[in-house]
């Protein structure tokens, strides 16, 4: 379908407008949901001043990402201010309904969950809603910053695993938890709603395609760190 601009929304199909509003709201919710998970406990306790500054900078970048997607939602009449302060337990995506209180969890969150963030942003490449597609056009500040979050998390995860002993055990437990959360973030396989997002140019891959690509990417990375890839079928909510 042809790309739409904001001015075209008044005459767009109601299903399209509904799905567009939904995807923008969820994206904004996820962007601000990340900092809400880790800021309270991790910013003050990160291992070094450099790490504290990286955590603060990461939060700043996620706030900026929230700003960008929130603006698109605001332009469609949606009030996104409530997303800024809603309880973690009410986040749209289950991976954001908790709290990160250990450095291991923060590292693995960047390694595995920010990577899901990249996958989600890739779904918007060439999106049918032009303002959304423009956020991801190369060079995309959002993509570059997300890559930085992933790289930091991956590097820290590998370092902690390389220490061996108790450090490696703790990081393995974090991988065991977040890997399952990550796979569930792709949603149900064979989802009819996913098909509608694809139909309307708001998504490029099926849930199962994206999930398989993700596993093909991260499994070798986990193994290269001397860690064990968790069983992808245990503890899952969305298969």
């Amino acid at each position, binding site marked *: 379908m042809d790309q739409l601009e904001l001015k075209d929304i008044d005459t767009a199909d109601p299903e399209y407008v509904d799905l567009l509003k939904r995807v923008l709201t969820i994206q904004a919710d996820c962007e601000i949901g990340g900092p809400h998970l880790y800021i309270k406990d991790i910013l003050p306790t990160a291992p070094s001043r450099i790490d*504290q*500054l990286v955590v603060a900078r990461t939060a700043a970048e996620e706030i900026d990402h*929230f700003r960008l997607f929130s603006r698109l939602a605001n332009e469609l009449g949606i009030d996104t201010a409530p997303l800024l302060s809603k309880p973690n337990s009410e986040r749209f995506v289950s991976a954001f309904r908790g709290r990160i209180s250990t450095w291991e969890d923060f590292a693995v969150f960047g390694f595995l969950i920010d990577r899901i963030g990249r996958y989600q942003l890739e779904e918007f490449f060439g999106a049918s809603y032009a303002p959304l597609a423009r956020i991801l056009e190369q060079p995309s500040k959002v993509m570059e910053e997300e890559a930085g979050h992933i790289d930091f998390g991956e590097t820290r995860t590998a370092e902690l695993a390389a220490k061996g002993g108790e450090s490696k055990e703790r990081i393995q437990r974090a991988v065991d938890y977040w890997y399952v959360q990550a796979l569930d973030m792709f949603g149900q396989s064979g989802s009819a709603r996913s098909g509608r997002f694809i139909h309307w140019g708001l998504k490029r891959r099926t849930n199962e395609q994206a999930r398989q690509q993700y596993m093909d990417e991260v499994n070798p990375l986990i193994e290269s760190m001397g860690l064990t890839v968790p069983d992808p079928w245990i503890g899952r909510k969305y298969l």
Partner: protein
Amino acid sequence: MEPHADTEQLDLFLREVVVTLQAATGQGLRHVHDDPALTDKVIQDCTELIGQIMDGDAQGWLH
């Protein structure tokens, strides 16, 4: 399609917050080895500002 009333104000406010945080963290990283006291102050300031955003009092910021 009517935009939400706070569209421009919220965008401008958050943009300023992000610029402030990016400048501060950059300054902190530049001086982390030669001025730890300055870096600690930067971290404290960033913590306070991010905390305000996490509190999410958008109506208080904008009106």
